[in-house]
């Protein structure tokens, strides 16, 4: 019987079968940020277990609230900073070098095909875009990961999602994943892996694949995954060029992780995107999705472009297709947070930052920012935000606020129009 990519990764990392359908896996990369890790560090210290299994396999960043906004967040940052220093964790990213974890760590080449990755953050599923198994975990799992380099999972089932057709102008990976979540609902992929395949995925950039995998958790999935190919190898090339003689060799090697033709899937789903139109959410759940045109005219107070979903270069460029030469509508606050220092620097050198400023946007440092309403960009009760983030939960961007999730292009159109609108009419 054939295996899926995830089954192959599980087999290659199997440590123990502790009972039931659970397995314990060896973990290649344990990633940490300053919201969920300090409490793990404190707990390990209290138990007299302040150790790490392998400092080179641990990556840490201060990203959710940075620069720190008050004593409490400054303390969280300090706990993580001191711990990284104490254990000689070289890949620790602080002010000046920090950015949103799920954008920063891939950029550094930390994620490779066939890897197992955990983090105390539900959007860790993003990294499946590289053909890895990457899962969000809680703080206890994180503690055990830090201490022992292992994590438990139930044996995965896989939902094969075939994306075919041709993405129309103005329609992006974000629209595709919103449409898929609508179809699957917020629980349709619970305890399953969403494996994205098909001609559309093959043509997507790594950035777009990350957008796709990022929101797999919003359908309940443990991880989203794309099969590693030439696009993956090209993205990773600066980090793997000593390992392989040529790009072709890397691409050929990556094939060992591909799902077998006779692999067994729990469910198969096909989406033809040729007739897909821009999608937006309307409620407090990410499966409450409709066509942008159906919400035409919905007044907004704020536009947020950023986050691990859509804060990468490609996203800024797409937003500027509409924003360049135009201005934010009166009464609307535009905020853009480039996801990493690299994105920021590149956006500067391409003149993108200048265009955002000219359009009337506030440009923040790389951070999670308004996405989770913990530092900047918080909404007042009754306010509405058009956002490129991944969660529209009640209170997410501020108590009493409403978040409409959409693509960077749709958010840019909303900024200019002052309301939700079909972005294609501005192209």
């Amino acid at each position, binding site marked *: 019987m054939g295996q899926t990519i995830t089954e192959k990764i599980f087999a290659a990392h199997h440590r123990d079968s502790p*009972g039931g359908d659970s397995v314990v896996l060896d973990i290649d990369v344990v990633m940490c940020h300053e919201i969920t890790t300090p*409490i793990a560090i404190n707990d390990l210290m209290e138990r007299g277990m302040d150790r790490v299994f392998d400092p080179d396999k641990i990556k840490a960043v201060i990203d959710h609230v940075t620069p720190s906004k008050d004593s409490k967040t400054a303390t969280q940052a300090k706990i993580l900073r001191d711990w990284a220093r104490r254990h000689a964790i070289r890949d620790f990213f602080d002010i000046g070098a920090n950015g949103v974890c799920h954008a920063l760590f891939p950029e550094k080449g930390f994620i490779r095909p066939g890897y197992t990755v955990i983090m*105390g953050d539900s959007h860790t599923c993003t990294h499946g875009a590289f053909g890895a198994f990457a899962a969000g975990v809680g703080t*206890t799992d994180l503690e055990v990961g830090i201490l022992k380099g292992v994590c438990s999972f139930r044996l995965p089932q896989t939902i094969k999602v075939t994306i075919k057709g041709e993405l129309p102008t103005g329609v992006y990976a974000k629209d595709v994943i919103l449409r898929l979540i609508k179809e699957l609902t917020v629980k349709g992929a619970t305890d399953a892996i969403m494996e994205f395949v098909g001609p559309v995925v093959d043509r997507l950039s790594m950035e777009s694949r990350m957008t796709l995998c990022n929101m797999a958790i919003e359908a309940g999935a443990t991880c989203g995954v794309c099969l590693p190919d030439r696009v993956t190898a090209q993205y990773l090339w600066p980090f793997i060029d000593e390992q392989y003689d040529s790009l072709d060799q890397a691409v050929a090697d990556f094939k060992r992780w591909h799902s077998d033709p006779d692999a067994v899937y729990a469910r198969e789903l096909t989406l033809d995107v040729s007739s897909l139109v821009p999608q937006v959410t309307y409620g407090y759940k990410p499966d409450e999705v409709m066509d942008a045109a159906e919400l035409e005219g919905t007044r907004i107070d704020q536009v947020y472009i950023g986050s691990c979903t859509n804060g990468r270069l490609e996203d800024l460029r797409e937003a500027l297709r509409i924003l360049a030469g135009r201005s934010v509508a009166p009464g609307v606050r535009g905020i853009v947070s480039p996801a990493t220092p690299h994105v920021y620097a590149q956006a500067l050198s391409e003149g993108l930052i200048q265009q955002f400023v000219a359009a009337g946007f506030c440009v923040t440092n790389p951070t999670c920012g308004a996405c989770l*309403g913990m530092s900047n960009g918080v909404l007042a009760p009754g306010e509405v935000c058009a956002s490129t983030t991944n969660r529209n939960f*009640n209170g997410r961007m501020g*108590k009493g606020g409403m978040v409409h999730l959409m693509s960077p292009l749709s958010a840019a159109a909303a900024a200019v129009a002052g309301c939700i609108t079909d972005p294609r009419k501005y192209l």
Partner: protein
Amino acid sequence: MKHFGGASLFLDRHDINTDEIIPAKYLTENSKLDLKPYMLEDLRLEGFDPASAEARAARVIVSRQNFGCGSSREHAVWVFEVNGINVVIAESFARIFRQNMFNCGMLAIELPSADIATLFAARPAEIGVDLEQGLVKADGREFFFTLNSFDRDLVRAGGWLAYADRKY
């Protein structure tokens, strides 16, 4: 091992997410106990008051499908723990929340929808849990549940850290 069972709290909705159980703004707390006052503060549920005597006295939560979806924050489990709630009974759970419960030596019990419907219809004030026999007891009735044997071992061990430290 923790104590399981006691006064009930019925949350009649699907897809209750961890942002509703403990809002992000409280994630700056570095001690579990400091989370205590904020349990279920942002829950979207008609007529629910997180400060009510019923919510404060609760030891067992009963809910519908996909309980604990969204953010991976274990704070959602801890805020229950520090409020004396060691059991959540639901039709289904989100993966990370369910694992976080067992990792803390707490119980995430899945019951078939018919049993959940029966519980909601009767709304018993007290719910008992017999871990060894796999029974939820309420109003003189018994509902069978099964646990993954590993999850049961985690509960017996008092959580994943104790278990993993011994074994790996």
